[in-house]
């Protein structure tokens, strides 16, 4: 079905590989949403699929599909922009294509094992073959090694193309940041009996991805997209990009400390984590201002309205600017200080933040990049939003915001009743889970999840058809 997206108009191998990654990303995005719906249903009706497809399985596939579709869309975006930015054909493109098929096959096997085998005996073989049981990076060790090999090939494609081509600011940040992003994965590839040590390094992967290197990645994509979509000046965009790198890494690297409040690590992480993570929203404000400023500026220049070359793409980039600030910035800041976090840590509050942040910071811009891919695939000069584009962005954004609000309310209930009033524990946990307001919030989360899913159907339809329509209109 996704083959429908023609790629005849693509002029270079990198863009074609990019489109291959985008197609798989969309399928995994669908899997993420379906698994989320199952898990959300189980919160409301706990007997749903009990003993057959338990919450732990649905939730594992939910978050793994999320991480993997985002990585796919990220890798796809890099391949897509590579030749355009460097002015060179992708080095060793054939190898890159092979790596894509190897990775996709490996991921299909991992997902099938997750779904049908689910768990194993308490032996090393389970860690190697079935799942590692560590949230977000559950992939078994054999797949870890495969991922490393594939990522090395991907990085070689990027690095050698960069070396022989133009070294723009955007590409320089991209190449340096990707090295850190890929290298960090290694911190999650070992086993230890010491749960504190386990969690310490686990956060190196999770935090230094989503609160440092992924954010810089988003800054880089936004810079490129602004140049492409609205013709923003490269000098201005690249200056902003360096400021963003400074602020994102300046706050995000030591902001890691906010995960070290309660896992057995020393008290000094309270102060370090609080200070630096409290600064994390600052670059997100800067990114927000930057996108809107450039947009307004380009609109106002030369007397008449300048042309937006990709309407839906630009709409998602602007949603990213809002969503990143709101989901990662505001919702993260809510509970980042240890004085609050001692009560909110590990509650639905975290879940609320997780949903809006992953959506606002990452899903949005990656969907924008997919629209860029479709535009390129059909060779469309100017792509306007269709009815489907509008339904998709409105329903998905509304759905995710609704889920976030519902989970925040559930979080308040849990924090105040389970933690503050009753002090946590088995009985305290269920006392909060059974409160009518909590149950009501979980029901709303399920409804808003369905709204999000309907929005996704529109998005899928749009990505499949918008290119053809726009091409026909131009002809």
């Amino acid at each position: 079905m996704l083959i429908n997206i023609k790629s005849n108009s693509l002029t270079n191998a990198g863009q074609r590989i990019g489109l291959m990654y985008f197609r798989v990303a969309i399928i995994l995005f669908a899997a993420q949403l379906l698994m989320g719906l199952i898990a959300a249903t189980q919160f409301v009706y706990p007997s749903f699929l009990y003993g057959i497809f338990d919450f732990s399985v649905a939730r594992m596939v939910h978050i793994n599909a999320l991480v993997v579709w985002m990585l796919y869309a990220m890798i796809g975006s890099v391949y897509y922009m590579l030749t355009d930015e460097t002015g060179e054909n992708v080095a060793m493109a054939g190898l890159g294509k092979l790596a894509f098929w190897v990775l996709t096959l490996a991921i299909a096997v991992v997902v099938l094992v997750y779904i049908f085998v689910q768990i194993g005996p308490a032996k090393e073989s389970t860690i190697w073959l079935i799942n590692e049981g560590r949230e977000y990076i559950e992939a078994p060790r054999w797949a870890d090694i495969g991922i490393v090999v594939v990522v090395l090939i991907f990085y070689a494609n990027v690095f050698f193309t960069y070396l022989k081509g133009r070294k723009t600011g955007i590409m320089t940040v991209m190449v340096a940041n990707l090295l850190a992003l890929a290298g960090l994965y290694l911190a999650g590839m070992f086993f230890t009996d010491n749960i504190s040590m386990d969690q310490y390094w686990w956060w190196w992967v999770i935090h230094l991805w989503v609160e440092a290197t992924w954010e810089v990645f988003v800054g880089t994509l936004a810079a490129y997209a602004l140049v492409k979509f609205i013709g923003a000046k490269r000098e201005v965009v690249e200056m902003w990009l360096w400021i963003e790198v400074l602020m994102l890494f300046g706050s995000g690297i030591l902001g890691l400390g906010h995960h070290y409040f309660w896992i057995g690590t020393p008290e000094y992480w309270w102060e370090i984590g609080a200070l630096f993570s409290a600064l994390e929203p600052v670059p997100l404000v800067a990114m927000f201002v930057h996108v809107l400023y450039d947009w307004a500026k380009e609109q106002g220049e030369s007397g008449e309205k300048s042309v937006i070359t990709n309407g839906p793409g630009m709409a998602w980039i602007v949603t990213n600017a809002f969503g990143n600030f709101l989901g990662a910035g505001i919702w993260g800041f809510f509970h980042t200080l240890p004085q609050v976090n001692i009560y909110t840590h590990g509650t639905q509050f975290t879940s609320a933040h997780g949903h809006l942040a992953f959506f606002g910071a990452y899903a949005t811009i990656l969907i924008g990049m997919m629209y860029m891919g479709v535009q390129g695939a059909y060779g469309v000069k100017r792509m306007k939003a269709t009815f489907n584009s509008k339904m998709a962005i409105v329903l998905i954004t509304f759905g995710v915001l609704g889920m976030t609000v519902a989970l925040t309310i559930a979080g308040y209930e849990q924090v105040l009743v389970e933690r503050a009033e009753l002090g946590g524990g088995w009985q305290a946990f269920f006392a909060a889970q059974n409160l009518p307001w909590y149950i009501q919030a979980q029901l709303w989360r399920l409804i808003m999840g369905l709204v999000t899913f309907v929005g996704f159907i529109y998005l899928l339809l749009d990505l499949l058809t918008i290119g053809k329509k726009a091409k026909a209109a131009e002809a």
Partner: protein
Amino acid sequence: MAKENLSVWTSISFWRRSAAWVTGFATILLIWLTFDTMGQISMGTDADLQKGITKRVPAPTVINYHIDYKMSEKRGHEVPVIGKKEPFFGKEWSPKEAAALLHLGKLGSQAKNCMNCHTLLGNGAYYAPDLTKAWLDPMWGATMQGMTGKSTKEEAMAEFLMHPEKYPTHARMMPNLKITAEEAKGLVAFLKHMSSIDTNGFPRGFSKTVDQFKAGGTNAH
């Protein structure tokens, strides 16, 4: 750049250099702190336990001791308190045996995917109770020992882990994860060990008013 820059604030090379310096500085500080933390969270030894030396993460043989979680006036929050020796599954475990049992339990916690329903040290999923101090949970006392017909807490926990579907406490039940008797022992050891970790007072006031809550009625007199 074609035009000469009038101000340093709009100079790309200034921001590039600043970004590199700030990133480098933050990275070095993180690595330095990591070395310090590694030292502090490495597991203690059996000798530490015998001498009463407090470690943030004690040796596996901590399973041979009574563990409590008490308010520390000095630190302003609760801390684990390691007390007198007590049998664990009816015996005292040698350092070697205890380490092997903890290894089995930690592997089991990952192989059974505990973290995608529960939280451990507050990290994981939010579908089931936090396990950080699960060993100390009052539910394992009269309630679960009564339901399982076991005379000790550790046996009741192991029995529950093997057949959770037989002992439901709420509509939301733990599924049967095909946990063997040996694996269940390991998991209980893992949970007991985790409860002895100094988590800077998380969770706060663990289960403090649960009894009062269960009794119902009013607090007014």
